[in-house]
């Protein structure tokens, strides 16, 4: 009986390990295949670094990767800021039209991106926004917004509004309430929302595909269009580099900054 109490968290950890293994299986395969010299991904693996050498000489793929990064960073900042403001309003106030506003968040995630992409292309063409990096940022922010709002709102729902009132009654100004009370509480939600926004933008290919101008593309666009020619292992190579780099970056962040907060 006493053993059961000890083993429950242990089971939990093993389970967590299994889920992580499932999540990382295809990523490990991708990394392994980037070192496989067979273009057809034959097994067993014939180890080689030729795709990394090829990648170093592939200016187009590297430029596309840089564009993706720029767009994703700008999108993350704008979407997180605008989305959080909306979440706060949804949480603090009851007002007419709120339900409609909440419903309006669903079309961007329900309607297949292909249709939104086509619609954006035509509309931007009509109103003169055109295509290019600026158009892609416009589109990406719109797609990331609902995710930010849903995630931050979910976090806010566990927030006790009396905390805000208490702070106010103790004489705190509105901005002090937001900064010293609300913000620390929703910080993990903000961080998660920013991660989402970044992922949505960094991974978005349909919208970018329609809004890219010739010669200026993003990584997913390059990947998507290259499928017809051949899904070259260079793509596995650059994906491996990106995932390794972001893992190092995020774990570094986790090392120095506690965003989850211990209570």
């Amino acid at each position, binding site marked *: 009986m006493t053993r059961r109490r000890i083993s429950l968290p242990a089971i939990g950890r093993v389970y967590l390990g299994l889920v992580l293994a499932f999540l990382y299986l295809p990523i490990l395969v991708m990394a392994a295949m980037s070192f496989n010299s067979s273009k057809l991904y034959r097994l067993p693996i014939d180890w080689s670094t030729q795709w990394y050498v090829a990648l170093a000489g592939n200016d187009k793929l590297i430029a596309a990767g840089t564009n993706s990064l720029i767009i994703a960073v700008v999108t993350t900042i704008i979407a997180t800021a605008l989305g959080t403001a909306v979440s706060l309003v949804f949480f603090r106030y009851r007002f007419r039209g709120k339900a409609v506003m909440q419903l309006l968040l669903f079309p961007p995630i329900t309607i297949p991106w292909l249709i939104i992409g086509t619609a954006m292309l035509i509309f931007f063409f009509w109103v003169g926004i055109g295509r290019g990096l*600026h158009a892609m940022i416009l589109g990406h922010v719109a797609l990331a917004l609902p995710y930010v709002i849903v995630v931050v709102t979910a976090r806010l729902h566990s927030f006790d509004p009396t905390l805000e009132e208490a702070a106010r009654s103790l004489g705190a100004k509105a901005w002090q309430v937001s900064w010293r009370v609300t913000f620390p509480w929703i910080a993990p939600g903000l961080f998660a929302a920013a991660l989402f926004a970044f992922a949505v933008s960094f991974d978005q290919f349909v919208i970018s595909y329609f809004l890219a101008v010739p*010669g200026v593309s993003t990584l997913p666009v390059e990947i998507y269009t290259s*499928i017809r*020619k051949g899904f070259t292992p260079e793509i596995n190579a650059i994906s491996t580099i990106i995932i390794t780099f972001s893992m190092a970056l995020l774990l570094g962040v986790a090392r120095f900054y506690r965003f989850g907060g211990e209570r």
Partner: protein
Amino acid sequence: MLKRFGRTAVGLAAAAGVALGAAQAMAEEIRVLNWQGYGTDEPWSLEKFSEHTGISVVHDYFNSEQEMLTKLRTNPGAYDVVLINSAFTRQAADEGLIQPIETGKITHLNDTSPGMRENANFIIDGKTYAIPWVWGVTSFAVDTTDFTEVPTSIEELWDPKHAGRVGWRDDAVEAVMFAAIATGQDINNPSDFDAIREKLRALKPQIRTFWSSEDEWNQFMSANEFDLATYWSGSASRSKTAFGLPVEFVIAEEGAIGWLDGLSIAKDAPNPEGAHKFINWMIDPDFYVAWDTNVGAPASANEKANAGLPETSFNRAVLGDSEKVSKVQFMGPMDDALREKILTLWQETKTYYQE
């Protein structure tokens, strides 16, 4: 707040615009719209072209003919050269998406096969809207390790021997055309849709999966997922030469689907002069022979180019065989109503395929 936000957005857009403009204003360039990896973007050729003419070539790609048309419609003045399947050339010209070509500037034009040069889809009201570039055949290829003898009939795709071992492309027009050939009908104007529906439904136990790109096809073949699969002639020769796969392309005795790709100049092209030069470069036998030998290409519309290939090359051995080629039915233009009818039939069939 609103105002500041607006200014930031405008500033961002402007910054992005400046960055784009700076990157593009450097040298004389032309913009080409094509499938990716389909000849025009071979780097060794573009380098030489740039040396010769001082023009650099920028590419944009499409993944379906409809998408190509949409890109032309919504980006007037963005492209110079565009590759269009002959079945769509007339529609593009009718919509005013492409402009007549000054044939005098295309010095290699007279070497192209007259039948293709004077294709009814390319010449409209006496004006030339496209230059024939490459052509090929859609039929099927077999894994020679699974066959003692290369089959000759299209019925092989329906043979229960190959249940669950057939690769098929998820393309409504192609699927219906295959069924039309198998039921002895005109591919451009099938009359008996019930027979086609039955024939396509009979494929249900046969199909292993749908393939959508050459790369996927190669991977599936290499992983031994298929005994035989529908395929394109040019890709089959690439699979053999570039990937060393044991495949043989078959033009069945019942017939096969022929297609012809032409190069056109977009309406309001920013650099029509460069566009003419590039098209001429693309139908030059020098380019084609190198492309087919080193990479693998569809058959050239330029007779001199085909003659420059080694005798054993796929495009001379298979597509040079006039007896075989005579069985090929070429794709004609298709009106939207028929295209829609074909798509509905194919989608209904695919729904039937679901367990």
